[in-house]
């Protein structure tokens, strides 16, 4: 069984590519929804110590909205979206003409719009994952928290923590309207699922 630490370069490339195709598909879905061009960065594959997770997106005390969906059945893992106020303002401005100046004051409608966007993005992401790996994946409903980034990321940390001191992140940035607003998508598979993916793709 592969641990996070002993993946070969080729296997890392394959996982990165999966992240790339999945995120590409999600970006297309988001573009259609907003009627705008969405760019994504080349996904970064990061193996980090669990205690470093809260520092990955600026400081642990930065405020953000975090949306989490759980993957289950053939592949266990989490999809986590982290959005800052600018990104949310742009998104909700396009979708429901809501002006968000303060991340604390998003309306109920705004919150459910954010969840729905995550749902659509995750659906397109997971579809690709399923068809490439021949897996069946169940997606939970999205849950949202608005708080300090570090506190939000406690959830994936405790999810991965029972199996490892490390965490694999496939990190993608969505860029809306040029480079002005960005959001992060983190895909966090657990170790057993990671091995399953590698096996099914025949790159073990």
């Amino acid at each position: 069984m592969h641990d996070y630490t002993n993946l070969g370069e080729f296997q890392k490339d394959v996982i990165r590519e999966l992240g790339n195709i999945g995120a590409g598909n999600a970006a297309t879905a988001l573009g259609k929804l907003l009627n705008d061009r969405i760019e994504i960065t080349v996904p970064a594959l990061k193996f980090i110590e669990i205690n470093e997770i809260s520092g990955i997106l600026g400081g642990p005390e930065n405020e953000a909205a975090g949306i989490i969906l759980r993957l289950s059945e053939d592949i266990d893992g989490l999809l986590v979206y982290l959005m800052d106020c600018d990104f949310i303002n742009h998104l909700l401005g396009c979708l429901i003409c809501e002006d968000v100046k303060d991340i604390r004051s998003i309306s109920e409608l705004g919150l459910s719009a954010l969840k729905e966007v995550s749902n659509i993005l995750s659906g397109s992401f997971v579809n690709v994952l399923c068809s490439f790996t021949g897996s069946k994946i169940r997606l939970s409903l999205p849950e949202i928290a608005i708080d300090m980034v570090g506190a939000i990321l406690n959830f994936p940390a405790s999810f991965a923590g029972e199996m490892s001191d490390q965490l694999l992140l496939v990190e993608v940035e969505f860029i809306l309207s040029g480079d002005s607003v960005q959001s992060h998508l983190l895909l966090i598979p657990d170790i057993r699922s990671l091995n399953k993916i590698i096996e099914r793709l025949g790159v073990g």
Partner: protein
Amino acid sequence: MAKWLVVGISDQKIAFSPDKLVSYALGSCVGVCIYDRKLRVAGLAHILLPNSKESLHCPVNPCKYADTAIEKLVAGMEAAGCRRQRLTAKISGGANMFDIPGPSIGEKNVEAVKLKLLSLKIDIVAADVGGNHGRTLIFDSVSGKLEIKSLFHGNKII
């Protein structure tokens, strides 16, 4: 000049007067702050999970789990001259950040911490746990006071 010692997830530190211990942005994690008032020695364990026996991973990092982390912290403080009967505890964190059904990891962490402190006969003199918000903890070795900061729920000192 007091130094600030940062305690990350699955980590713990001991501070001597006048230094302060700080743990940023706890969600479901629990900060266990143990204090010896006479020596003005403070210890902070930032735990991630409740029970080392449920670990699917070896070797276990003792600082990650409530049961092993508190034992290790108390042993470290005793090695620094603290006496068990003088130790008191303040705990904070253990929030349920996401509205996911079933007992949350935050609640389990708080329960495990309380049980371990009880078995070590260390009194919990103050607690600010649960809810659904993140907390930053600053534990002062001079006064034994624990300052808790949050984004939307104000700041308090316990």
